[in-house]
């Protein structure tokens, strides 16, 4: 009896190589400017062309400035090195004829945001991209994972990924959380419980009554951060919500869509499927979560004490000490004692319309606190931006003192000019609080859009209720 992951694996299994590895057929390949140039170079050196051109969809997201105006193009990027990379993607897509939503396109955005919203991500697909947050697409019932640049070249050249099968884990979230607790809090809590290596070697299927209740976008936030639990694959079985979501986004004709839907509604783990590991978490009493350290597993309730070095065993003391030191935590005992400098609402984790609506709900009619030198909202795509503007969310943010930006990865990793300065403390809706992630010596606290919006107004974390 099989899990959903087993079934997707088998359906895409082309052959087993002499080495024992398998070739998996790849339905969809997303590309962006950072991890693709060396792959295209490899392809060209071998005199090869993309195996199936239409499998590939590209967009620039990591490097793009978010302060650009309407008549912007790649050549106008001020950072010369960033420009080379974005221009290189333009060139490669033109050379091979790959569909690109380029920097001028109103549909450009973070690759994991535009894929599902433009109908390119469909349930049951295998999806890869040279980006670890490709797990996001698993929310639609895909076998989706991040790959390295050598593998990007391999997929371009062969339409296959060489892979070994992962183990199966099922994580059930049961219950209904309190108001103002979002799927970001749930996934952070989960990572805190299982640890950042807890899912290594596994494909995680997220299930349980909570997953059934929440929207597709909320599921995306959870699958997005499967990688922060160590699992390169996170997925949710398609249900009626999935089908309704895809129906709205799809460019398929009606007849084909109905045929596809018939197939998708059968994609689920068998009742008696075997999972190598099962985890059940009661989420009914979970509070908003905020990270305090330099790994996503260093997370506590927003009103908890920050862990002290003395709380830990000899082996873990060093990690805690290094994290406290990097984060500039001295005598502060509670998270709410920490004074913030910047707020970032965006990233492939939390830049979709629902995230922006939730944040705007907190911000409406209030003003950004004096200690916050910059609070930015970066919609995940041109389409999210447009929708938000139609709903007047941009006005709510700007009237409160936020800056409303153009789409991109932005301050999640600071490859563009959106960066923290040394020692600045940031409330961020992104996915990684690693040292230097948002800028050299910058200090990142991960949280939900609701808590980030609250922190912008309050100046410190607190109870958004």
């Amino acid at each position, binding site marked *: 009896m099989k899990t959903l992951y087993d079934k997707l694996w088998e359906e895409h299994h082309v052959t087993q190589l002499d080495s024992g590895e398998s070739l998996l057929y790849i*339905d969809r390949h997303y590309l962006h400017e950072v*991890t693709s140039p060396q792959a295209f170079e490899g392809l060209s050196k071998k005199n090869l062309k993309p195996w199936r051109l239409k499998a590939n969809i590209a967009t620039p997201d990591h490097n793009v400035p978010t302060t650009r105006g309407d008549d912007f193009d790649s050549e106008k990027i001020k950072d010369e*090195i960033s420009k080379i990379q974005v221009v290189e993607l333009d060139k490669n897509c033109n050379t091979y004829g790959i*569909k690109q939503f380029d920097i001028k396109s109103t549909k450009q955005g973070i690759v994991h945001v535009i894929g599902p919203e433009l109908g390119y991500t469909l349930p049951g697909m295998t999806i890869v991209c040279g980006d670890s947050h490709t797990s996001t697409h698993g929310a639609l019932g895909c076998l989706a994972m991040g790959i*390295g640049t050598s593998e990007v070249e391999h997929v371009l050249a062969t339409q296959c990924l060489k892979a070994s099968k992962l183990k199966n884990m099922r994580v059930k979230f049961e219950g209904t959380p309190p108001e103002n607790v979002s799927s970001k809090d749930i996934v952070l809590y989960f990572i805190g419980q299982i640890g950042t290596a807890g899912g290594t070697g596994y494909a995680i299927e997220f299930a349980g009554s909570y997953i059934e209740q929440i929207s597709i976008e909320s599921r995306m936030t959870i699958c997005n951060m499967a990688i922060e639990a160590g699992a390169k694959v996170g997925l949710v079985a398609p249900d009626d919500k999935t089908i309704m979501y895809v129906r709205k986004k799809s460019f398929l004709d009606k007849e084909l869509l109905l045929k596809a839907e018939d197939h998708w509604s059968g994609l689920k783990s068998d009742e008696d499927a075997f999972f190598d590991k099962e985890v059940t978490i009661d989420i009914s009493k979970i509070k908003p979560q905020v990270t305090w350290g330099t*790994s996503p597993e260093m997370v506590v309730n927003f009103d908890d004490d920050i862990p002290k070095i003395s709380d830990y065993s000899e082996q873990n003391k060093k990690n805690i000490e290094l994290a406290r030191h990097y984060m500039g935590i001295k005598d502060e005992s509670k998270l709410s004692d920490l004074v913030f400098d910047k707020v970032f609402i965006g990233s492939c984790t939390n830049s979709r319309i629902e995230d922006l609506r939730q944040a705007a709900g907190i911000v409406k009619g209030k003003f950004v606190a004096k200690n916050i030198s910059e609070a930015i909202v970066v919609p995940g795509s041109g389409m999210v931006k447009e929708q938000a503007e139609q709903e007047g969310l941009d006005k709510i943010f700007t009237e409160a003192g936020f800056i409303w930006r153009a789409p991109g990865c932005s301050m999640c990793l600071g490859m563009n000019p959106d960066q923290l300065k040394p020692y600045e403390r940031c409330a961020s809706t992104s996915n990684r609080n690693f040292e230097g992630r948002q800028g050299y010596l910058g200090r990142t606290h991960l949280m939900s859009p609701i808590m980030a919006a609250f922190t912008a107004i309050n100046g410190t974390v607190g109870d958004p209720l």
Partner: protein
Amino acid sequence: MKSNSDGLMIDGIVGYIDRDNIDTDQIIPTEYLKSIKKFGFEDYLFDGWRYHDDGRLGVKKEEREVNKDFILNISPYNKSKILLAKDNFGCGSSREHAVWALRDFGIKAVIASSFGDIFYNNCFKNGVLPIQLQKNQIEELFKTVEDEIVEFSIDLQERIIINGDKEISFDVEDHLIDRIIYGLDDVDITLKEKDKIYNFEKNRKETRPWIFINE
């Protein structure tokens, strides 16, 4: 006798970093991902720890404020061929640049108690051998290397780490170790199966036609 030159042995000084969760942002920060090249990352390995200033792509080591206390800046560890770390090494982003930076610095093997999945795969594509040992074995190795400068010999065929008169065996799948020894190209290997891929694709077009339609 086996030697480094035939790819069957890795001999060299063991550098060590006593930390869990060394993520790929630490191995190489995002700034250097702006390169469109596959080589030339040696000066940026562990950039945030190796220097006291904020680096930029293209700025050389000589122009930087070097952190003289960081192990890989201290002789003879600046010639380390083997790196010892703790749990979950290479977690985080998929950037292959992390392996390129280790490789360009001269690291040929990383020993840790666990690795990030994507990083682990990327290693074998670039001639870097990740070796996974039990946590207690890692603790023992740390005691050894912290006391004195140590060189290990790693026998790839026998799968053993030789430290003086002590030997530790490790597991790696055959096809992965062959990648390190012979430096095989995955695309070439896979394209030998191209008929199977064509047939699979043809069949898939019939059974799952919606996959093959773009607007």
